[in-house]
């Protein structure tokens, strides 16, 4: 079974590069959406992904708000969430982890290693 990743980001550039990056891992399936509302609609009706890669700063509903909402959806209470942000200060990273994320990917990320980075974060969280 491929690892299913849901990527939520309002920036088209980021979604396109992430899609390129994650498709380098042939054992990974990607669901890419452009807003928290779109993600929640998908998550309320579809199967839960194995991991959610969630942009922090988005219009209308930011990443932390999306995280809080998806935790209220049955079956998603413990789905691993990794935040993605351009703000790499350690206080910000710690704040995001304190919200319940298992990790933080800093933008700009390396497209050649993003899939491995996600797998490493997942493995560390499972250890």
């Amino acid at each position: 079974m491929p690892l299913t990743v849901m990527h939520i980001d309002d920036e088209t550039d980021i979604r396109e590069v992430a899609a390129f990056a994650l498709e380098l891992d042939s054992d990974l399936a990607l669901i890419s959406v452009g807003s928290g509302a779109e993600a929640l609609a998908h998550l309320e009706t579809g199967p839960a992904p194995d991991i959610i890669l969630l942009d922090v700063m988005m219009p209308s509903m930011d990443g932390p708000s999306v995280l809080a909402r998806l935790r209220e959806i049955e079956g998603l209470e413990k789905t691993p969430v990794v935040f993605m942000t351009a703000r790499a200060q350690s206080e910000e990273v710690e704040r995001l982890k304190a919200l319940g994320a298992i990790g933080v990917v800093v933008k700009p990320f390396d497209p050649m290693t993003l899939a491995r980075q996600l797998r490493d974060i997942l493995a560390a969280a499972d250890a």
Partner: protein
Amino acid sequence: MSNDPLAALRAEFCVRAVEDRAVLARALAVGDPDRVERVAHGLAGSAGLFGFSDIGAAALAVDDGFASGRGLDAAAADRLIAALDALP
């Protein structure tokens, strides 16, 4: 033909960056810091992906002003405009 797998996406970024430059200049002219923050934050995350580290660094400096609570740093915003003007 380019061997760069990101070449097409980089070209799209350049088109959008020109649009971002116009939006940024307009937002600065009318005093719309929220829009400045949105544009800068987006560029801070994306420019480096395509190798435009100068734009990324300038955008991050603007974004840092908002993230730290200092608000709009006009000089940093001007540097971001200049970096966008240097796009190929």
